[in-house]
Structure formats: C-alpha cells, structure tokens
C-alpha cells in the first residue's frame, strides 16, 4: 500500500504542525521564553531520529532496539574531532554521516541474518557494545562524557551559536528527512522493503535480494539518525554514553509506535506527544513516570496504530478528546507559571487544530456518504 494514499487529514495536520514548529523561535522571542526554544529544539532533533527509525521499523518491519547507538556515533564523531581541534563542519558532518553509516552497515550485516525476537536482541546487544565503547573511551571522558568547547564552524555561512539559526537548521533537516522518507517509501525500493515486511519469503521467491534491500534501508536509517546525533551534540555542547543507553533506544521505539508505525508523519506526532507529555508531567510531579508508564501500557493495549492509526480509522472523536485533554493540560500548566498570554495562545491553537481535524473528518464522512448514494 502506498504510504501516502488518501490521507488528507493526516497530511494537513502534519503540515499545520510543521508550520507551527517553524513559528516556535518567533513565539519564543515574542513571549520572551527561551526555554520554549530549548524544548522544541530537542523535540525536532528527536523527531529526526524517530523518522529514521520509522523507515526500518514501520516500513521495513525491522524492530531495531539499538537505534540510539547512531545518535551516539554521530555525536561522538563531532565531539572527538572538536576535541582534537577540527571544527570545520565540512569535515565533521560528512565524517559523522560516514561513521554512522559504517556502524549501521556492520550492525546490519550481523543482525539482519536473524529474525523476530533474535533481531531485537542482537540489535540491542550490538548497541550495548557501542555504548560500552563510549564508556571505555577514557581519552574522551569515559562515562562522564565530554564537553564540546566550540560548535561546528560553517565558515560564517551558518552560525550555530545563534539559537534560532540552529533551530531552523534542525527544522530544515527534519523536513528533509520526512521528504527523503516519503520518496524512499514510494519508490520501487520502498515497495520491495514493504513487500518484504509483509512476506519476505515471497519477495525472495519473486527474485528480490531481500537481505541487500533491508541492509540498504538499515544504513540509510542509521545515517539519518547519525545526523540527529550531530545536531544533538551541536545543541547540548556535550556528548556522553548516556545518549546511547538502551532506554534511549526504547524511548525512540515508543515515539514511533505512539505516533503510528509505517505512517510518514507518525513519528513526528509521536515525538511531539511524547516529549510534551514528559515536559508537562515532569513539571507537575517529579514522579512523572508513574503516570507515563501506565499511559504507555494503555496505549499499547487499547490504541493500536497510535495517533496516526486513530486518524486513519476516522476516530477523530477519540483523537480530539486526547488532543483537547492534552492541550488543556498544557494550557493549565502554563497558566501556573506565566501570565495569561501564553496559555491563551496555546489553548487557541489547540482548539483551532482540533476544529480543523473535526471539520476535515466531517467533510470526509459526508463525501463518503455522497459517494455511496
């Protein structure tokens, strides 16, 4: 099934969301709220990683439980080069891509021979290997990590120290990653990948070298995720093994599944929902995971297909209830901390989004009815 077939609701909401994300630096400036920019930079960077994981997990059916390793490889390449005084982005960034691609190639070569639970476990094991490599890299701080003293230098073209510039760079990479994913999935290559997900034996019988197709997708996903690591290192000025701990890989899977596997914009929805929920819950109570854990269990048991699945099945009412509740939480939460302007703006945006979804769903429903008559 082509990935982007007759899903105007999802696409419009996603485009609206990307548009809203593009406005974040302006809003942060207007409301004089620098933390907002920090939060959303983190969201956009994680969304890039989630989009890359979705390519192999959602479309390829490869449940990689070690995807955070590439974030680490990307970050460490930049960090190590900076440590040795190489700051030129033209060297750092391509090398980071190359390194994460090579790592993905090695991990893929070993792990793609296995299936099912063994694939989950071997990707986990190999990612742990990379994690301990970072732990043992005593010259680069070991498990304490390494502070990057100077950000990548684009020779005056792009100034990464200017926070809105960095944000827009991340945003542009996210849009590019989504476009890459869209083109890949709808190409012949992507069709083979999805065919192999539903029945790899049949694809092999038709004559496709399934292993090579999967490996290629695995490497592409690793490289895109490595780029997320590069951006993360540029953003936090810090690298440490903690960024590739296995629970980070778990978080990434959660983001993809929460948003909807095998849907182009699912990871975007999932990441925004995951990190905003984390932000809100953790500002209310230090013990936010005691709420988040059960939410996760409930989502897995009851809401299969994630956010995008709810959109697809036309369950706009469930989704709207979720959205409205979510934004209500966020609005009330902001009201505690600041003046009335931000919560009002957020609530207005929330209701606009919800009504847009409802209007689109209604229109689609009536169009369907008309079609049946």
């Amino acid at each position, binding site marked *: 099934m082509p990935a982007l077939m007759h899903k105007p609701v999802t696409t419009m909401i996603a485009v609206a969301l990307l548009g809203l994300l593009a406005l974040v630096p302006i809003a942060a400036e207007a409301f004089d709220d620098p933390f907002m920019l920090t939060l959303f930079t983190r969201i956009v960077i994680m969304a890039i990683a989630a989009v890359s994981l979705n390519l192999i997990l959602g479309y390829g059916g490869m449940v990689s439980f070690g995807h955070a390793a590439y974030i680490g490889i990307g970050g460490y390449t930049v960090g190590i080069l900076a440590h040795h005084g190489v700051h030129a982005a033209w060297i750092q960034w391509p090398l980071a891509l190359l390194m994460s691609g090579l790592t993905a190639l090695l991990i893929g070569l070993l792990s793609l021979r296995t299936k099912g639970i063994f694939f989950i476990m071997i990707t986990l094991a190999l990612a742990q290997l990379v994690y301990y490599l970072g732990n043992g890299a005593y010259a680069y701080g070991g498990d304490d990590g390494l502070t990057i003293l100077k950000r990548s230098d684009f020779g005056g073209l792009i100034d990464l120290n200017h926070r809105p510039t960095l944000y827009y760079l991340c945003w542009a990479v996210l849009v590019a990653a989504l476009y890459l994913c869209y083109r890949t999935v709808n190409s012949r290559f992507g069709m083979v990948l999805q065919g192999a997900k539903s029945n790899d034996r049949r694809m092999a019988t038709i004559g496709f070298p399934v292993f090579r197709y999967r490996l290629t997708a695995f490497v592409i996903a690793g490289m895109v995720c490595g780029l997320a690591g590069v951006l993360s290192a540029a953003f936090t000025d810090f690298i440490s093994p903690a960024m590739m701990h296995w629970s980070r890989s778990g978080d990434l899977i959660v983001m993809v599944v929460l948003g909807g596997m095998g849907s182009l914009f699912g990871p975007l929805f999932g990441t925004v929902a995951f990190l905003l929920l984390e932000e809100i819950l953790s500002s209310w109570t230090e013990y936010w995971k005691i709420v988040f854990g059960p939410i996760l269990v409930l989502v897995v*048991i009851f809401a299969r297909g994630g956010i995008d699945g709810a959109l697809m099945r036309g369950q706009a009412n469930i989704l709207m209830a979720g959205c409205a509740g979510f934004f209500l939480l966020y609005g009330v939460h902001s009201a505690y901390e600041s003046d009335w302007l931000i919560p009002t703006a957020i609530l207005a945006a929330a209701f606009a989004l919800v009504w847009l979804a409802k209007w689109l769903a209604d229109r689609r429903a009536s169009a369907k009815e008309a079609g049946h008559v």
Partner: protein
Amino acid sequence: MLLLLFEQFLNGLQIGLLLFLLAAGLTLVFGIMDLVNLAHGSLYMMGAYFAAVFTQWTGNFFLGALLALPAGALLGIIVEVVALRTLYTRDHLDQVLATFGLILFFNEFARVVFGAGGMAIELPSWLEGQVEIMPGLPYPSFRFLIIVVGLGCAGFLYLLVQKTRLGMLIRAGASNREMVGALGIDIKLLFTLVFGLGSALAALAGLMSGPITTVQIGMGDNILILALVVIVIGGIGSIRGAFIAAVAIGVIDTMGRAFLPNMLGSFLNPSDAGTLAQALSSMLIYILMAAVLVLRPAGLFPAPGR
C-alpha cells in the same frame, strides 16, 4: 596466583548464579508464553525492596527473605493478571513497549514508596565474616551462601522441570503451546503459575544481591539486559542453556574486571586502565552474544520444536 584465579572464579560463579536465577524465570516465561518481559528486572528490584523492608520490620534477614519471596510471587501474579495477560497474543514489539512502560512505573513507584536514597539490607553477624572453604582460601560467607543457594535452586529447577508433572507441562508448553491447550490443560492457570514462579526467582535474586550492592532504584535495568543476553545465548525456553550461559557470562565478566586492569596497567595509568577494562569486559559479553547468534541463531540449547 592459582588461588587468586580460583577466588575470582568463585566470584564469577556467584554473579553467574544470581544471573541464572533471574534468567530462569525469564526464559520460562519467554519459552512457554512467548512473552518478552522487560519488567522482569523490576520484579527483581521489588524483591530486593521487599526484603529490605521486611528485614527492617522483623529484624532478621531470613524472616525478611522468607516473607519477600511470596510477596514477589504475588506481585508478579498481579502484574500478569492486570497487564500482561492481554499481551500473549500480541507481537513482540507490543510486549517490549508495554513492559518498558511497566519498568518506568515500577522505578518511580519505588522512588515514591521507598524513597530515592536506596536501602541497605542488614545481614546477621555470622554472615558478615568469612569462611575458609579451602585451606588458605578464606571467602566471604554471604557470597558462599549465594553460591550454595544458587546451585540448590538450579538443582530444584532441574528436578521440577524434568521429574514432575508441572515440569512436563512446562516443557510441553515450550515446545507446542496450542497442543497443550488442546489436550485439556488449563493454560491460563499454568501461565499464571509459571509467572509467579519466575517472579519468586527474580525476587530471590534481588534479595540476595541486595546486601552486596545497595538496594536502589533502577538496579534491575542493567542486569535485565544481561539476563536477556543469557537466555538468548542459552536458547529461549531452556533452563539448562540459561544455567550454562549465565555462569559463562558471570565468569567472563568477573575475570575481565579482575585481570584486565593489571594487563592494561602496564601501558596505561591506573584509572584509565580501570575505565577501559570495565568497558572491555562488558563488551566481551555482547561480542559473545553476537557471535552465538550469528553462528547458532536459536541459541546453544534451543527448546525442541521451536
């Protein structure tokens, strides 16, 4: 030198046996119910907390441990009935996610109920000392007790699985679940029993490692990954495989930690050598696992029929 080697081997055996207790429950649940239970590490942690609380309450480690075991089994059964039962028919990804959510829950739950600081388990004085297990080789009594209990549990599990009716059902379930159900066995009850047994074993591992390390939040997270490695190397559903793999991993890890720093120390400064050695011995484990999976994708001793 030989004595030192033997002592480190015993340390490795002790860690391996703890790992085996954790992995045995995991591999049973995995083998019979086809359930990936990441929350098994949380049951281990809760077992340790139960023991700490009950030991404080009764003032005696053995009474505390005796109370903690049924508490751990009960908690496992509650988790199975409330959350995991609906996941048996789902794919592994759903199970990984839901039980990942349970880990988050239990870690925070422990923080709320028992506090963030961690707890220590008081040992009775006669376990604090050392015993001379061989002439000229004193060994900490409690670690020796762990070895004895671990070997005892391994023997008990062997008898249970090989010689009893329940064990026969467990083996049959690991080979072909549907057929066992078709023959009129109450699968639901069997699943719950096995899950309870696995939880009790996890709690036992937790309460025995509690006095060595402190009881703290997240103590189950890293050892869970090791236990997963153990069952994958040993072959899913195989108690024998879990035993061999657990002891092998315990010994490799301990030997690496004990001897690599000296070997590296000849050309590195001590703290760097320590960092590197610790990472290297951890890496050895994952290299072993990757090698086993590449050469024998179903593990060393896969359950027949899988």
